[in-house]
């Protein structure tokens, strides 16, 4: 069983307090500024293009289970569905988890209802394909080719199937917007898609799209925490360079006495993180 060390307790609780404080401040009326995220501003463009072409839009929430990453993806896809519903546009959502079908149906049908176009929603378009990775990829690729989709929105946890799906959509000339927290799949999306949401932009998406105070406050909190992390890294690097490994010793099992210890084998930051050597 893994348990928090003293430094993890302090850091996690401190970060949580920063985020919750910013959420409360935003709920009380403080309106933060969010910079433009090109991938998300392209949603209306992509939907508009699909309307002009008279072809459907394909969305995917990836290969994850019912977890935070997939729910975040569903929140983005639901927003896309809301925009599409305003134009009476058809959205296809193939899923890989049978248990996720009713959740997706509820979220997408709610988006169509709120746009005043419940008639444009069809439960036939929330399709369970397969729980297996490549069967799912084959199914999505088939849908893309048969329906000649005009746009794809690929958000969520992706693995090796990311390129199969994105390349098939590229072949039919679809405009593509993708976002994933999987760092190994980001390069595939970058080469195959028109717009890609990278890293924590993935979690900023709902704040950007909905402008809801709670989520915007949370986003500001995330940025404050990032600044704190960057500050710790810079401080740690400076102190370590002057032979004072105070910050390093706070986080790593392998304590350093001098700067020379850092350069000994197995002592670099990257190797320690990779080997799970964090405290």
């Amino acid at each position, binding site marked *: 069983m893994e348990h928090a060390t003293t430094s993890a307790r302090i850091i996690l609780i401190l970060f949580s307090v920063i985020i919750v404080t910013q959420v409360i401040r935003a709920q009380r009326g403080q309106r933060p500024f969010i910079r433009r995220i090109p991938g998300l501003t392209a949603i209306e463009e992509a939907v508009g293009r699909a309307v002009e072409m008279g072809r459907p839009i394909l969305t995917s929430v990836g290969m994850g289970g019912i977890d935070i990453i997939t729910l*975040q993806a569903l929140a983005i896809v639901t927003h896309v569905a809301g925009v599409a519903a305003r134009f009476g546009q058809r959205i296809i959502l193939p899923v890989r988890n049978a248990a996720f079908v009713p959740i997706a149906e509820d*979220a997408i049908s709610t988006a169509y209802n709120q746009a005043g176009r419940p008639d444009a929603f069809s439960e036939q378009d929330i399709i369970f394909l397969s729980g*297996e990775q490549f*069967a799912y990829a084959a199914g999505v690729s088939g849908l893309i080719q048969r329906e000649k989709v005009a746009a794809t929105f690929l958000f969520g946890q992706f693995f*090796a199937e990311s390129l199969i799906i994105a390349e098939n959509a590229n072949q039919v000339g679809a405009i593509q917007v993708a976002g994933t927290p999987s760092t190994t799949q980001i390069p595939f999306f970058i*080469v*195959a898609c028109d717009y890609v949401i990278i890293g924590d932009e993935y979690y900023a998406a709902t704040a950007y799209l909905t402008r809801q105070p709670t989520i915007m406050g949370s986003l500001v909190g995330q940025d404050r925490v990032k600044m704190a992390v960057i500050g710790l890294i810079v401080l740690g690097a400076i102190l370590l360079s002057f032979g004072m490994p105070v910050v390093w010793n706070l986080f790593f099992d392998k304590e350093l006495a001098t700067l020379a210890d850092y350069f000994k084998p197995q002592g670099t930051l990257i190797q320690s993180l990779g080997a799970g050597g964090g405290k």
Partner: protein
Amino acid sequence: MFVPQTGITLWLFILGALVVGGGVFFVLTLVPTRFRKPLIAAVTFLAGLFFALEFFLPVATEGETKGQNFLTPFLKPVSAWTTILQGFALGIGVYSLVSVHLRNIARKREGRGFSVVLLAAIVAMAVPAIWKEYNPDPRLKGFYEIIYDGAFNSLNATMYSVVAFYIVSAAYRAFRIRSREATLILISAFLIMLGQVTIGQAITNGIPNEGFARNFRIENIANWILTRVNSPAVLAIEFGVGIGALATSLRIWLSLERGSYFDEEL
């Protein structure tokens, strides 16, 4: 109580769990709508609080309970609730799936042939997979192996191999020099690819692998790009993603997130 059961006790436990689970779901349907969201918020908070306390509370450093606090023994049983709830969700999912495809067939919709194939596939995979657990007949196991290992896994491997061709077509587009970024991608990818293969390493084999000159050997250049440029960038992205996940988890745990994505706030 939290140990695996067998025989009649196991069946009594299963029956009891189904009755209690069904009873809880029935009681939940009777809860007035205005109390449902506060109820969900309370249950979510309590469930999250258990895991948070278990993680944060100090643990014993010696003795039989070394590495545990007073909540640790309950961790496995409480985590099992997730699996049980997912089981209910799976049941709803299968019901939804089967009903949609039965309706397709009954209403003679276009593409109903696929619905027939899907329902037949569910039966063909589920029946032998469950039956073989209770029937030692090797023919049954053989049938399961033919359709799963023989057909399904081979089809999976075939689909995976297709990725190689898509990598080539995607790489071709990415490597066309249209911008400074594309040029950087091309040069770094070229160097890393050369650094990974023997023919690439052979190009700079004449350079001594010591002193300042070693920095010009292709495998060392490739390694430098991977560990000093690529790894920090990936770590930075993962830091951001981790902080995003922490913020989203906090919003869900404290029910600050809106209830069903795009309805009013709690």
